[in-house]
């Protein structure tokens, strides 16, 4: 079970509270996790990544296990602790406040 923490605005949009828990088939990557999120919550399409290019939106970052995964390949395996559900993948809105 993959755990994902979404930003507050996207939890509101998807009508969820707390973490998202997902079954992801095959390799656990940014792309496969995003595919699973968008399949479970279609209203999130386009809010985390572009619907055409599948690239992360500029003001969205991916963190996990105290690391910034934002610039990893979409198809690189996520950290083992994320793959086994020990740690969540954090989807974070960029720090852009004052």
């Amino acid at each position, binding site marked *: 079970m993959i755990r994902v923490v979404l930003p507050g605005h*996207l939890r509101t949009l998807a009508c969820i509270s707390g973490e998202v828990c997902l079954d992801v088939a095959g390799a656990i990557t940014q792309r496969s996790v995003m595919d699973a999120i968008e399949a479970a919550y279609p209203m999130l399409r*386009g*809010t985390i990544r572009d619907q055409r290019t599948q690239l992360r939106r500029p*003001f969205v970052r991916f963190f996990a296990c105290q690391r910034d995964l934002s610039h990893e390949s979409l198809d690189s395996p996520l950290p083992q602790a994320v793959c086994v559900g020990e740690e969540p993948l954090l989807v974070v*809105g960029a720090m852009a406040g004052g």
Partner: protein
Amino acid sequence: MAGVRVLVGTRKGAFVLTSDERRATWKVDGPHFAGWEMFHLKGSPVDPNRLYASQSSGWFGQLIQRSDDGGASWNPVGNDFAYAGVPGTHQWYDGTPHPWAFARVWHLEPSLSDPDTIYAGVEDAALFRSTDGGQSWTELAGLREHSTGSSWQPGAGGMCLHTIVLDPTNHNRIYVAISAAGAFRSDDAGTTWKPINRGLKSEGIPDPDAEVGHCVHRIAMHPKRPEVLFMQKHWDVMRSDNAGDSWIEVSGNLPTDFGFPIDVHAHEPETVFVVPIKSDQQHFPLDGKLQVYRSKTGGNEWEALTKGLPQRDCYVNVLRDAMAVDSLDSCGVYFGTTGVRCTCRPIPVTRGLRSCTICPPSSRSKCKRSRDSGRASGAFAHARLHQR
């Protein structure tokens, strides 16, 4: 009992304001989509329960929300706005070619006859249409692919298609306006387009009366006289009596003719409202006095309407989609401002207002036509958004 709903879009969310025909007290419902920037909300003229809203965020992009119950509940619908084919380039601010890229939906215009058909004006400038209640969107690419498209350039707010006007007597006729390309008209339901900017004169472009390149801010039409159009350009208030084929300036005695919104009285096709703004460099009312100007002569002769509006220290702007009129017997005029007036007295206002549109009362409220005609002639239902 007749009533009115005002759909309000702000940088902090959306609000639905409801009142009876007296419009003395208002129920404020919201914020919906709190914390998101709402570029526009508009209701279907043929189904008062059907509302559409453009929800936008610098972080999470574009969403379209739809309500089927007059705003009580909302559901996200389609937000995939893909340009047809390979979109090419337009001019960037520095004059270099810049790839067309979708940023957001500025304006939603529901069909006059079908609640499931709606048009969306987007940045970078293009017109989209949905015929399934907003679930899927198709570009009417003949506009963006006009031969002048590669020369269009953005205004300060981006290269946005911000105005869509549908002709109630001719379903094939659509008007749009783009900052800063100008006004365009289709006579074949959006397949092909022609610029309709003859008579406009603009500084800041190489040829002041060029075919395209004018920063049109807003176009308004009275539904019973669709061949007459009124335009607030960057500078200049303009009028066309031939469906945009040519325009004449009707700024007349306005103290400044810069501004953003323009609208027409619901029952008097020659009565027009604008909010003069000091200049393109100083986006606030002259001398800090918030004044709506009204012409009862279709332009040229204007009078200031100030009662109830702050006449000092008011340094706000009124954006292009932030004015609307209702259709009650005594026509109400509504507008909202970009900010709050700094004052020691408590004057609640709607901050960061981007849009306000009027929607007939929801059928759920069991309204009937107004019997009220008691308001004094010329009474001006001003600044409703300044009231709770």
